[in-house]
């Protein structure tokens, strides 16, 4: 099954442009509270190409959701974007006015969240909400927008769309609600969809269907997808590339098959060995020791060093840059001073 999906991902790659759609560099988003500075995102680099899926993987507190909110400029006080640049199709999103940014959100970048109920307004029908997006963002007439809402629900695989369009969010199942929120996110034909744990709250069979839906939408419209998840094993059969986050940064980035075949950061290696799915039956899991430090007190140098089996004195002194693994031009990058050693762990 997973082999088939790998094949699907590579099939898709020939329709994928190599043009960079989104490029984030040196992004830092901090939250000030009670005299402490929580560095949720701190020096993050990532990029998403047209039509590709980038899986952004990490555990709680690594800054993956703060990254999504930063890209959409939805960080609210006490949080703020301290530095960095976010370029979308060559435009710097951080220099846009609020009005220009509102036009980008929804029209050019769509969003899907873990809990669709938070994205949907409980007192309006799903049809009204999709139509409102179209009227506000696209200036469509009411009747045209209403008709388009039905088409969109059909497109995302909601059964009986002309009936369901009049349903309130609570009248839909969890899976249907997520489909409806996807319909809303793609209503204006965005080029990039940011999906933050979109399948985590769903049952496995429903989650698989939503995954398939996102893949189909991508095939049809060449959508770039930034897929944020804690579950490396789920995304591994669906993403073209994966970026692994730890401590507010990307610590490793590679084509999915390269990451799985030759993980090079000790954290990535530890994560893979923690997954029952990737551990052969009868073999013991080898978890990462300890716990993630608080974002208010990252260790100096490499932030993983306090849990790392190969850490040395240098690791405390130097913040390892995200460098290509096999020389310049490699798509596989890792932020570890001793990556070559890590690979033989």
């Amino acid at each position, binding site marked *: *099954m*997973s082999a088939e999906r790998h094949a699907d991902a590579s099939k898709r790659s020939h329709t994928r442009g190599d043009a960079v759609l989104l490029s984030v560099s040196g992004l830092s988003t901090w939250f000030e509270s009670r005299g402490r500075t929580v560095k949720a995102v701190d020096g993050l680099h990532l990029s998403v190409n047209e039509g590709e899926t980038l899986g952004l993987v990490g*555990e*709680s507190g690594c800054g993956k959701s703060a990254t999504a909110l930063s890209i959409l400029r939805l960080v609210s006080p006490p949080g703020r974007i301290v530095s960095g640049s976010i370029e979308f199709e060559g435009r710097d999103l951080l220099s846009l006015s609020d009005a220009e940014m509102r036009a980008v959100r929804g029209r050019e970048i769509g969003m899907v969240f873990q809990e669709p109920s938070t994205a949907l307004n409980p007192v309006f029908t799903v049809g009204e909400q999709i139509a409102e997006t179209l009227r506000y963002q696209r200036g469509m007439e009411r009747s045209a927008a209403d008709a388009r809402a039905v088409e969109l629900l059909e497109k995302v695989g909601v059964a009986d769309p002309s009936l369901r369009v009049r349903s309130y969010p609570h009248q839909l199942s969890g899976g249907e609600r997520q489909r409806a929120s996807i319909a809303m996110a793609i209503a204006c034909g965005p080029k990039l969809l940011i999906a933050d744990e979109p399948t985590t709250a769903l*049952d*496995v*069979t429903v*989650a*698989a*269907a939503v995954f398939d839906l996102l893949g189909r939408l991508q095939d049809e419209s060449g959508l770039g997808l930034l897929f944020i998840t*804690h*579950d*490396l*094993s789920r995304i591994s*059969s669906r993403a073209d590339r994966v970026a692994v986050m730890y401590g507010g940064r990307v610590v490793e980035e590679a084509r999915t098959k390269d990451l799985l075949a030759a993980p090079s950061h000790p954290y990535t290696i*530890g*994560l893979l*060995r*923690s*997954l*029952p*799915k990737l*551990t052969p*039956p*009868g073999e*013991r*899991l*080898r*978890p*990462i*020791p300890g*716990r*993630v430090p608080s974002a208010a007190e990252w260790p100096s140098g490499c932030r993983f060093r306090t849990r790392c089996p190969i850490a040395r004195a240098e690791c405390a002194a130097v913040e390892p840059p995200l460098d290509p693994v096999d020389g310049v031009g490699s798509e596989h990058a890792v932020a570890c001073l001793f990556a070559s050693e890590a690979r033989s762990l």
Partner: protein
Amino acid sequence: MNRDAVQADRDFNSAAPLVEVLDLSKRYVMRTGFLGRVRGEVRAVENVSFRIASGETLGLVGESGSGKTTTGRALLRLIEPDGGRALYSRPESREPVDLFALAERDLRPLRRELQMVFQDPTNSLNPRRRASDTLSEVLSVHGIARGSELEDRVRALFRQVGLGTELLHRYPHELSGGERQRLGIARALALSPRLIVCDEAVSSLDVSIQAQILNLLKDLQAELGIAYLFIAHDLSVVRYLAHRIAVMHRGAIVETGVTEQVFAEPAHPYTRALLAAAT
């Protein structure tokens, strides 16, 4: 079936079961409006039967609403079953006792042998009680230890679940998710149980912490011979821990068997759909 699986099947099926549940049923009555008229009933669990041997893990899998949590709670009589029997064999007594037929007063002494670990330890720990007090309370209420022996027991439990003694005087909110779950496990272990019902016990934990807890549960079982009813929606987690699994769908067990065999040759269409979706 590989050799380990055959062995597991033989081991656990030949042994007299620790618990044998027969035809467990639980219905919920739906009431409506101010007068609370009965509108209908939901059959949460219907005629569910399974057995668990000493030292065995039975994985109970299924999607939300399949009845797996109801099954686990009814087994421990945290909710009252409407029908069925749960024959529990104790080495102390010749005949098994039916947990469902016992009066609450007669059930109480058995409760310490049948423990539960919940999904979210935050909700099952008293927020105003320090970690050490959570354990010493359980130990003293059941008359297991007192005085200096009590303190030794608490420290031993901390060590057993891999909690540093520097955490003894922390409140639950001062612990990480993984540490809280270790404390929840320590509390269950305090009474030397024979069976622990783990209801989504690792589901809300991060991957790296989840792996630590899974290994802990495995080690404790090897050391103490505890049986687990391990309820989870994540098939890979169940596969790692369970000797046998039972698949629930709409309140019934649709398939049961040795774990590796069910994964290799799922017989029921629902099991096949579940496995396909999980990859």
